[in-house]
Each structure stands twice: as structure tokens, then as C-alpha cells.
């Protein structure tokens, strides 16, 4: 709208022509009609609505898990992962004078002086006899190794995101005697070589394929052995206590964990210990931890 203070004929709004009387100021309504609207108002409303709904109910996250296999090594020709679990034993001479692992009577005392060869890959020091192992008694077959995967080493804040179970039915065997009157037999030992074929339970780690929900590329692995004979868990360290200066007062972040690195592109994982890859030609070694 414009205010006119002239006594002339004006032409406005294209072809409109008006003659104005002299005298008072006159006002004229100029028909500048403005019909304005947001461009794509409907779309904007819909988008806004979508955003609000997303805020309220969330978006469709991807919680699908995928299997991560042990990363190849040895020029990509091998993929197996090796675990050796060592139980604390008391080495005592047998009838021939050879030192053989036995169940320690007072482990918390013995561990203060025992050298590292007192930790052996055998179920015998844990209390299972060769006969029980060979005949797969329930207390043996119901036992298992439990690998827990945490997001950090800090026991206060860490979260256990997943667990892998290694059954005792897997693993290598050694020759053993169940009776002096019977031929020797092959019994299981807690030494595993897991791969795509053969023993494969625990070989694959199943974890989220998409990092959007939980962006974790590095896990920290601990190990326990569930002894079904006694119904207790036996905790494991990555170093025999004989090699730890302070056998009961050490930093758990150093001795209870291996680092597991996930490769989301290749869908593989690697196990590391102090910047050295483990599980390949050098097995991942776990040692029974003896409480004071």
C-alpha cells in the first residue's frame, strides 16, 4: 500500500487509471495480493513428522550378528586358532621315578614356590582321573571353558558382551593308561586347535555386523574353567603365577586378559598379547590362577 500526496492522475497496477480530486490526501488500496505458501509444505510436514516419530520410537537399528572367523596367517594358508589351558599340579614321582602331575593337596601354599612347569595341559591336576576322562563321565563332559569378552579391562566399568564356550569333548588327545591290565587309550587334554573344519565350536565369534549401535573393534578376553565335578569356576591368567613377582597382588588388567581385535571388513578377528599376535603358531596360553 502506498500513500499518495499528488494531484495528478496516476497509473498504477498495470492498466489501472484513476483521476484523483484535488484536496485531501487520498488513499488507495493497491491490489498487491500476496498468496504465499511454503514450497513443498506437505513434504516438510511429513519430514518433520518423520523426525518426531523417529525421536519418539527410534529408527530401525541393525542388530544382526555375523560370524567373525580367525584371521588367516602363514601367507593366508592357515586359519586355525590354538588354545592351551594349563592346570596347576603337584609334580610327584610315579613308580618309575618319573615326575607326573597330580592334584595338589595345598595349592595356595605350593604356588608360592612352584616353578612354571607345575602348570600342565592336563585335566588330571583338576581332579579328573584318566578313566573319568576316557569314559566321558558326566562330571567331565559337563565341564567347559568359558571365554568372556569385555569392552574394557576396567572391572568397575566393563561390560561382558558375549561369551564363548569350549566344550571338553574338543581338543587333542594323549596316550594314557586306565588300568595296568588294559592297553593304553587316548584321552582328551585341554589343548585346542579350532578351525573352519574339525573342532570348530568356539572358533567363530558372533558379533554385530554393523558398528552403528555399538562401535567396538577391540574386546578383552578372559578365561574360566567350569569344573562340574566341584561346581566351581577356576579363573585363568595369561601368565603362570610363578612368573608374576607378586603372586596375589598383581594388576589384573595385565594378567587376566588377551586383546581380541575385530576386522569388520574382512569379518575376522585376531588375538593379541602385548603387541604380539597369539593363537597362530604360538597358542593362546591360559594358566590356572590359585587363590591365596
Amino acid at each position, binding site marked *: *500500500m502506498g500513500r499518495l500526496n499528488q494531484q495528478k492522475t496516476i497509473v498504477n*497496477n498495470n*492498466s*489501472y*487509471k*484513476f*483521476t484523483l*480530486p484535488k484536496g485531501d490526501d487520498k488513499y488507495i*488500496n*493497491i*491490489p*498487491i*495480493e*500476496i*498468496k*504465499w*505458501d511454503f514450497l513443498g509444505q*506437505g513434504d516438510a*510436514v511429513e519430514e518433520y*513428522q518423520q523426525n518426531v*516419530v523417529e525421536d*519418539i*520410537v527410534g*529408527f*530401525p*537399528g*541393525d*542388530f*544382526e550378528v*555375523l*560370524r567373525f*572367523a580367525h584371521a*588367516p596367517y602363514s601367507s593366508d*594358508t*592357515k*586359519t*586355525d586358532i590354538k588354545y592351551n589351558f594349563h592346570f596347576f599340579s603337584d609334580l610327584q614321582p610315579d613308580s618309575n621315578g618319573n615326575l607326573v602331575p597330580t592334584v595338589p593337596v595345598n595349592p595356595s601354599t605350593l604356588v608360592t614356590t612352584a616353578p612354571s612347569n607345575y602348570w600342565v595341559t592336563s585335566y588330571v591336576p583338576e581332579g579328573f582321573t584318566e578313566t573319568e576322562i576316557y569314559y566321558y563321565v558326566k562330571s567331565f563332559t559337563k565341564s567347559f571353558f568359558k571365554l568372556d569378552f569385555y569392552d574394557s579391562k576396567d572391572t568397575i566399568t566393563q561390560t561382558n558382551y558375549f561369551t564363548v564356550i569350549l566344550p571338553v569333548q574338543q581338543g587333542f588327545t594323549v596316550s594314557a593308561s586306565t588300568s595296568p591290565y588294559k592297553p593304553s587309550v587316548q584321552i582328551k587334554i585341554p589343548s585346542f586347535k579350532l*578351525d*573352519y*573344519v*574339525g573342532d570348530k565350536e568356539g572358533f567363530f565369534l558372533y558379533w554385530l*555386523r554393523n558398528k552403528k549401535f555399538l562401535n567396538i573393534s577391540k574386546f578383552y578376553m578372559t578365561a574360566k574353567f567350569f569344573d562340574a565335578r566341584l561346581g566351581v569356576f577356576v579363573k585363568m591368567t595369561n601368565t603362570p603365577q610363578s612368573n608374576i613377582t607378586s603372586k596375589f597382588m598383581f594388576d589384573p588388567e595385565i594378567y587376566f586378559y588377551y586383546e581380541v581385535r575385530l576386522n569388520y571388513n574382512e*569379518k575376522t578377528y585376531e588375538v593379541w598379547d602385548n603387541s604380539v599376535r597369539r593363537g597362530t603358531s604360538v597358542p593362546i596360553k591360559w594358566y590356572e590362577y590359585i587363590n591365596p
Partner: protein
Amino acid sequence: MDDIRIVLGSLRYKTATDTNLSIPTPLVQNTKNLEEFDRSIDVNLVQIFDDERQKSTTFRPVCKFQVLFNNSYTGATNYEPLENNLYYINETALTLKQCGASLNSVQWEGFPQYDEFDFIRSDYNVSGYTVPIPSTATPPLQPMVHVDFVARSASTYNWNHFVSYPYKNIDKVMNYYDGTNPLTPSLVWNAVDGIPFFVKIDDSTGASIANGITPNPLLEGGNPIIRFKCPVKHGLLESEFVKIKLSSGYVNTFQVFSFGDGLPGTDEYIFNIFNIGYSASIFIDGDTGTFKRIINYENPNDTTSKYYVIQHKIITDVNDAVLVNAGFEKNIFGTKKKFESPVYTPNNVKRVSIKENAQSYTLSFNKDIDVSELRDNQKRPISELYITTIWKGYFGLTFGSVDNNGNDVGLKQGFDFNLSPVDNLFNTPQPWWEGNNVESNFVDSNNNPYPIGYYNTPYGTVNGAPIDFTYLKSLKSGDTINGNFCEWNDYEQKERVISEMYHKFTFNSDLFDMSLMDDNNNQLGYYYKPNRRMKIRGFSDYIETGSINSMAGVPDYSYFSTTYNSFIWRDLYTYGFNDGLGNGVDYPFLNGKHYPYENFIFRIIPEGTNYIESNLNNYATLYGAAQPTKDNCE
């Protein structure tokens, strides 16, 4: 305001005077509140789920394979790693023969074990075959092993699995052998020319002609007819038309009069036209030709079918496939295995050998399949994915021959009408499968055979040279392979599979001697179907049409009929909708992805399973088993 014209008063007519005019022209401000339904919505989880589902274009296909395999061919070998690992036959006689004979002079006989065909090889610990035997020489020689087993490759040594989709339509030369002449194809045609046929105008046979018997014209209900026999299902309906092209070049359109020759099961393979007295020079008994189906002869542009071979494009790589044993599932045929006593083995090692197994497998993929950018062979949004399985044969027991030009003969391909042997004894494959026939090569988009890889082992020689162990090099994402022979009709907007694609592999005769059955140029072998359909979207049962004056709602994949001046298409059903006719899909949707699932039976088919019934002196003279038809009593 555009229509208002204001004229000065004195100009309105001769004596008119000027007058003040006032035109109320308001400054209009149109402001409006958003409608109630625009401002607030109900948060409905079911609706939100469905919105997300309809919007998602990402798929994670999963399937289960039940492998059906009858280990059918025995052979002999003295290639040590294979000889020590056969499922033996005649082992008693061979053991006696071995006594006193020089080393390697006796070829042990048997079946290759099931691991040679299994989806996941489990023979990872066989000394000398998959585990190296270290050399004891000084300095040490190459360890003795056929293939140093890589566990990661256990699921890719024999077979490779991919996801593919129908990418485009191509032409292919096709041959059909009906057994009348084992060496010459009875029909040779191009896929785009349609469906081939033999012409029959009278009741003559080879024997009647030889005996000088005058043939009688073919009649049906007293009406003279001309009969057309097809090696595949013709796909015609009553009152439809056929555009026939004879070997002479004669082309014309006829209405179908009837189907079959009166024998059960022939309706789908034989059609007849009314013979109004066509010149004997046009239709000649025994002549051949091709036809195309026409629904409406007044509108041949839109209603004539097109014929083609589908070309698939592979969209995953070998390592994207995750193949695992399927829980506890076994097929009903069980495992056939036996104990090989050490006395009855060439290396005196006891073991259990397996001839056939029953394990099922689950296949999934690491890679998400986004179909938003993909169009099928009809330029429509993707409605089907295919699980493609290709024989690789890395252990080198198959392939190995060369054609007349010295080129390697690898995997061969053909259609189901090529599977039947051409003799009664079932030991002569159709010449289609000969190594020299380039039309049956397993080829890429440039029609070049997919390459063959080689390796040698420390064991065995042929003519003083190391044995070449050959295998098909793995395909990769972006490669193309040929698929089914199909018919498409624009008017119906529907595709029909006329004949399915099969692959064939044969044994390496340098390695595995099948005696009389291993004609080097055309051996007996195993067939399998490479492509298995996984439906991910359904097209409507009805056909939509749209005018050019109202384009809203017309999808971009619609067909424009110049005759009707309108668009024709089938609607894409939404996910989760089923029209009751099996056209929709409803499979899980979670994680923002679709999870289509299928159960597949994977048959590895030995020669002779498919046959031409005429060779068995049966009543049907066409390829394919005559299926009993339901009559009015049933």
C-alpha cells in the same frame, strides 16, 4: 482480477462525463492454520513397522540346501592320492591282482568318495591327499600332497555360491536331439525365433514309408488337421494363435484348433491347426520350424510373445557366501559308507569310505543386497533374486579335456531338453555336450568360456608330463551367466519358463578311467541346475492399464501399447500382502532389512535320469515323461 477492464467515464459513450471510481482491491493475506490431521498423528507401531518395511530395499537372503546325489560312476585310477581314497569295488580281485604285481601296475576301481561332490569338504586330514607327507630325503624334497588343505576353503573347493538377478535377455543357438539320428540335431533354432516344432500332416511312420503304405491325412473329429510337435511345452491356450515360420521361410499366422494327439500327456507338447487345404508344398510332413504365440491376431504388436534366454548378473563374491551345516537335518536317503579293511586297500590303510551322504546346508551372505538400483530383464524393479551355484572342482578330478582347437573344455551348459541320452543304453549323451560344441560352453557376457585354472602335484604323470589338474576359476561380482529359456508377453506382462538351464561336468579322463563310458569328447557326467529362484516381491494377478492423459500412478516400468494408446503393467504388491493366489510375499523384516528364505533341493543328476520316451518304445514320442492327466472321473 484479470477480467476487469476499467474505462474512463468520458470514454464510455459520447456524452458521458468522468466520474470518480473506487475499486476496493484488498490486500489479501491468505494465512491458514494447518489442518488438524497435518499437525498431529497417532504413533502406531504397526504402521511405522509397515512404513519401514515398504521403504527398505535391502535384502539378506537365506536358504537351505538339501543335496540329493546318487554317486553313479565307477572308474579306475592309479593316481596314488585318488587311488588310496576311493570307495572300492572289486577289491578282493584287485587285492589278488596286486599280489606279485609291480607298483602302479594295478589300477584300483571304485567310486570317488562323497567329499569330491560335497558342499563342504571334510577330508581335511587325509595324509598324502590333503595333508602333506614331509620328505625324508636330504635335502628335503617337495612334500607329497595332492592339495594342501586350507580349512577356510572347505566350502569353496567344490562349489561356489552367489546371489544373482535376471539382468537382460539374450539370444542363444539351441539344438534338440529326438533320438532319430544320434549324431545330427533334429532341431536347430535361435531362442528369439520362438519354440521349435516338427510338422506332421499324415499318419506315416518310418516303417510305413519303408513298406510303401499310403499315408492317410490326419483327422480330428473328421476335420483335417496339421500337427505340430514341440520338444518343450508350447504354452498355448485355446483360441490363441501361432505365428509359424517354416524351414522354407514361409511365415503366417494360424489359429490353434486343438491340442495333443489323443494320447495322455501330449496336450502340452502338441498343437494342431485346421487344414483348410493348404498347399502340400507349404506344409511338408517331417518339416521343422518355429512358432511364436499370439493372443489376439488383430493386435499382433502387443500380443505376440517374445522368446529369449535370461542372462543373470552375479552381485556377490565367493567369500560373501557363508555356508554351514544345517543343524541336525539329513535327507531321507541317509549315509552310505563302508569300512575299507587294510588288507583290501592299495596302501594297506584302514578307513571308512563314504559314497553318499545326507547332510543339509544353510547358506547366507555377509553382504547386504540393495536392490534399489537394480532392474530385471524386463526393466522392472527386481522381484526375484537367484541363488546361483557353480561347480568349481578345485581338486581337479573333473574337466581336463581339450577341444579340436586345443582349448580347454570346462563347464558345459544346456537346457533340460538336452539332458536325455540319445540311445537306449543311456551311455551316449547328446552331441550338444561334446567338447567341440562351442554353443554349450559355459560362457561370460562376451561369449567367451570362463577360464580354467591349472596346478600340478608331485604325484603321477601322463605321458611323462605332470598331470594337469584343472578347475573353473571362481566367478566374481559383475560376471554374467546364462539362465532359463523363457517366453514373455507384453499384453499379459508375464514371463514363462520354457526350459530350465543346466550345467554339466565330466571326469578328467587322465585321472579317472571310466572305460567305455569316457569318450573323451563326450563323456557321461553329472548335471545340476545352477540358478534357484528366491522371490522377493510379488506382481499382481491383475493387469493395470493407464491412459496417457492421466499419467499419475503409472509406474515407469509399464509397457506402452501403441494399439490401445495406453500403458499396461502389473502392480507390485506391498511386502506382507498376499492375494490368496500365491503372488505376494511375506517374510521376516527386522533390522531394517528383508530376510527372504527358501528351501532348495539341489540335485546332482547322473546321465540318463532324463530320457526320451520314444527310446523306450513308450507311447509318447516326445521328450519328457508323460504325466497322467486328470479326467472327468477324478
